[in-house]
């Protein structure tokens, strides 16, 4: 397996990053960029053309993010392309458009059905982050895919705003697209680790009124009022500052872990909070908090898990899908999580990825993939 990473520079050309070997037989190019840049139609076409000149056989998957990962750096305002060539396997890419009021599970199932299951080992999914119900999408894809297949990926993001997210396959990326890339090959090694670094605190609370991913009341009290109390002076920074207190959805009252749900927005009028994922009524939840050290430690931990799972095989591609929320908390120290992850991986592998609106990764207790928030998800790929 050979992985090459290129950066789009001001001259509107792809520049190889200093630490990469080149390969012209790449089957897949992951093209991550910020939403404004990917919205530039002409630019994108130029970039795609240039890529195809280099890698004529490649399927190019575009995805917008809130910061693009290249090695241990975060790139904003530019495009990062990662070219992948499997020596002993193949790649099949598919995409579907999510209809406006469609059940995202149906879309996921539809998409997954386009990937032949014979020899399928790993599916990377990159989805629109605003009009797709990530939880449902993952449910739909999981149900349609064989249990042995690892599913990971993420929801495309906007840079700090919630205007639009763009995904595309061999095309100029647009809203409402979902792309899935199937990796085939017996010799493929897929390892995964995901960790948040968030701690639950405070009393258990009951979601007493919610609709889908909009929470109105916790324990009979308006959810927004609760958040403002906890944010104190930071309440001025809502909705962004709500990222400081994601919700942990517990399976039951005594559970010690659960799914993290990050706040996407608030409504002063309705006193409600919109989360990046369903929060059903009756769910037992607790507030979570963290510190920068803990977040960084989380990233480090996720990487360590993935490395262990590799079982001594050196990773070629390391896909990191982190969360916008983490970046906003870490602020300028965000590169620390990348550095610590890189160190924990053994300082090997080409690191690519983006900061997303939601991470898709195997969920620890069950093993099925789920939608996570505020979590560093690391998928390491190699060929034996």
């Amino acid at each position: 397996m050979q992985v090459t990473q290129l950066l789009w520079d001001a001259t509107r050309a792809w520049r190889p990053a200093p630490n990469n070997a080149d390969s012209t037989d790449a089957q897949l190019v992951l093209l991550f960029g910020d939403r404004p840049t990917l919205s530039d139609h002409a630019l994108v076409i130029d970039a795609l053309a240039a890529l195809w000149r280099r890698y004529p056989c490649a399927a190019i998957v575009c995805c917008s993010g809130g910061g693009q990962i290249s090695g241990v750096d975060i790139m904003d305002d530019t495009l990062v392309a990662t070219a992948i060539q499997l020596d002993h396997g193949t790649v099949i890419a598919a995409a579907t458009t999510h209809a406006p009021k469609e059940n995202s599970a149906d879309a996921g199932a539809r998409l997954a059905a386009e990937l032949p299951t014979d020899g399928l080992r790993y599916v990377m999914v990159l989805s629109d982050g605003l009009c797709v119900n990530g939880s449902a999408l993952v449910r739909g894809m999981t149900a349609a895919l064989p249990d042995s297949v690892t599913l990971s990926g993420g929801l495309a993001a906007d840079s700090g705003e919630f205007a639009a997210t763009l995904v595309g396959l061999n095309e100029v990326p647009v809203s409402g697209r979902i792309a899935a890339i199937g990796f085939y090959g017996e010799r493929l090694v897929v390892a995964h680790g995901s960790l948040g670094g968030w701690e639950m605190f405070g009393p258990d609370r009951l979601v007493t009124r919610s609709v889908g991913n909009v929470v109105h009341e916790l324990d009979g009290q308006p959810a927004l009022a609760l958040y403002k109390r906890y944010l104190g002076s930071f309440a001025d920074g809502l909705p962004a500052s709500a990222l400081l207190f994601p919700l942990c959805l517990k399976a039951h009252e005594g559970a010690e872990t659960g799914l993290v749900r990050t706040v996407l927005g608030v409504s002063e009028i309705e006193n409600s909070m919109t989360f990046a994922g369903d929060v059903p009524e009756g769910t037992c939840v607790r507030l979570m908090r963290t510190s920068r050290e803990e977040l960084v430690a989380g990233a480090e931990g996720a990487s360590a898990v993935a490395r262990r799972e590799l079982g001594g095989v050196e990773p070629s591609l390391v896909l990191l899908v982190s969360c916008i929320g983490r970046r906003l908390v870490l602020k300028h120290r965000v590169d620390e999580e990348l550095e610590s992850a890189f160190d924990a991986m053994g300082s090997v592998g080409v690191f690519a990825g983006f900061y997303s609106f939601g991470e898709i990764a195997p969920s620890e207790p069950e093993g099925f993939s789920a939608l996570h928030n505020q979590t560093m998800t690391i998928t390491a790929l190699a060929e034996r």
Partner: protein
Amino acid sequence: MSESRSATAFDALHPVLARQLRRHLRGANATSVPPDLLRLITAVSESYHDADDERRLMASTIEATSAELVDRHERLEISERGYRELFESNPWPLLVCDPATLQLIAVNATAVERYGYDRDTLCALRLDELSPDADAAALYACVSAVAGASNHPSAARNTLRTRHRAAGGCVIDVDLTAQQIAYDGRRACLVAAVDVTDQVAAYRAVRAGETRLRSIFDHAALGICEMDVDGVILETNPAFQRLLGYSADELQGRALTSLSPSDDASVTYSSMRELAAGRHDTFSVEQRFTRQNSASIWGSLTVSRMDLDGGSPRLLALLQDVTEQKELEAQLTRQAFQDSLTGLANRALFRDRVAHALARAARSGGQRLAVLFVDLDSFKTVNDGLGHAAGDRLLVTVGNRLAGSMRAGDTVARLGGDEFAVLLEEVVDESEVLDIAERALAAIRSPIQVGPSEVFVGASIGIAFGCNATSADDLLRNSDVAMYAAKGDGKGRCVVFEPGMHERVVERQQLEADLRPALERGEFRIVYQPILELSTSRPRGVEALLRWCHPQRGFIPPARFIGAAEETGLIVPIGRWVLEQACLQVAEWRGRLWDLDENGETDFTISVNLSGRQLRDDDLVDDVRNAITRAQLPPSMLVLEITESVLVNEVEMQTGRLEMLRALGVRLAIDDFGTGYSSLSYLQRFPVAVLKIDKSFTDGIGRNSHDVAIVRTIVALAGTLHLSAVAEGVEAADQHEALVEAGCELGQGFHFARPVEPAELERILESWPNAWTTTRVGAVSAPPVP
């Protein structure tokens, strides 16, 4: 990094860092610091800021969390106090105990108060120590069941009615509810004890009352039945079940009306509906009920409505067996309207029927109706002769025959004694009625078997028609008068009422009244009619006949008064007088009018009529003997004439008397022979010497071969039995000739001579040739003397 930028960066340095810089890098400023170091310093400053932010955030988090926890704690405390209050101040005594040991763990204030212990003492007790010994076992069972139960809520609760003893020893009835709960982190049993002493007492009182009422219901002799508002039986008492012969189950659910025949039931049904609708409160009715064995009884039913609190009303039925009363009533009714002997209608009913028939006739334009008044002839003979029992049987038989002669719709009644009456409605005309009356007469005339004897009665029937009467009494009286007339006319016949009959009856009654003193007043005469030998016209005897010369009314023929004389019994003294006079008269003639033979005897006879009444008279034999003795008449000259029907009737009873008469030497003639039912044995037994052939045969002998045959037969019979035959009522020469040809020896009638006074008779006899010639010539012509 530009100068302006670095200047700004320094200004924005974290105060702590700025202070540190000032201390450790004196004189450092934006321009003196190399760019790399400036970047480092900026990064560090940002870290310091970040640290501050984190601390601030942590502080607000801790504050918010604490506030929340305090708030929750307070709310929990309030809630706890509230729940505590619910326990303590609960109006029912609440006790918490260990389910295994029954040791009390907690009690509420009400329990403390109710049981009379102080709190500590009470909590030191076990639950079963509150129970009297007898009730402890049930308590264990109740609590154990709860303690051992699974977590299912309903299984973890148990109730028990038991007794508890308070501190002072007072025992109360309690309803315990034991419930499994978690208390203080462990399984416990919550017991609520409700004092139900009053309820239990009240319940017992109600039960006692119910038992008493139930007992009354069960033991009442009257049949009681409870029904729903539609008359469907809900419950019955034993008396009701016995009355109808059904079991309680068989009765329940049936409609009361289904136990009666449908005619009776339909009236009751509508009454019950009225009752249920509230139009009255009660009703009573007598109707029939059908028992389980299909027997029918009469029941007196009283149904009332019971209005209960809530729900629809019930109906209460009381039932009594009145079958006997009904029977009695029917019997009394029958008695009131029925003649007990014959079963026919009695006078009262008959009169009522007649009145109704008249009214109907008046309404519908006077359809013909008639009343027959039937009086038996010679009933007294039988009654006095054969006894009252025989008389009763006779009346019954007559009643049956009378009824049998009538049509289906006619009413036959016995008015009393030997009087009957018949109401004939819708008769077409008079002849129809007469036919019916004749039929009745014939039926009654037939021989009636009374024990070993055969008797004969006749009847006299008076007929009255409705058109002649204005009222029932009127009609009855008319028919009575007509009957009377029939009697007077000779009995054994029908007479139709005519206006004016009354007068005749009155007249007859007057006649009877006059008859009484007539003998004393010498108003009677005896006339004599000769009896001749038909072949020679030689007088052979005379018949004495009675005549009455009433001072006002003149000559009254015997047909008019003989009946009355017989009925009144006056015939006895009159008959006695006739006998005497006739014997005396003949004795007087004997010496003058005819010769005697060498023995001093003659074959001349004097016939005197004898009535049944005379025959019944005890003094008859003496009277006869006196008469012939006084007249010094040879007994063989006296012939007593008795009509065939009288003889037949009297012969049984008067056998002795007749024998005595035979012993006297007098002879009997059977008058009106051929019209009755005489038996040949009588002719043998008794001193019958003469058969007098009834006038009716003499009448027909000239024209009617049938009558000729009869006459011949009678003559032959007489010859065989060595009797004389006398033809009565010879009125024409051809009859005379025919009789001679038939071989009849003797005859009498207008053809020869009418009945005449003695002086006239003498003259007639003297004027006849051969009148007095005796048979001295030879014995050939001497009639054999029986």
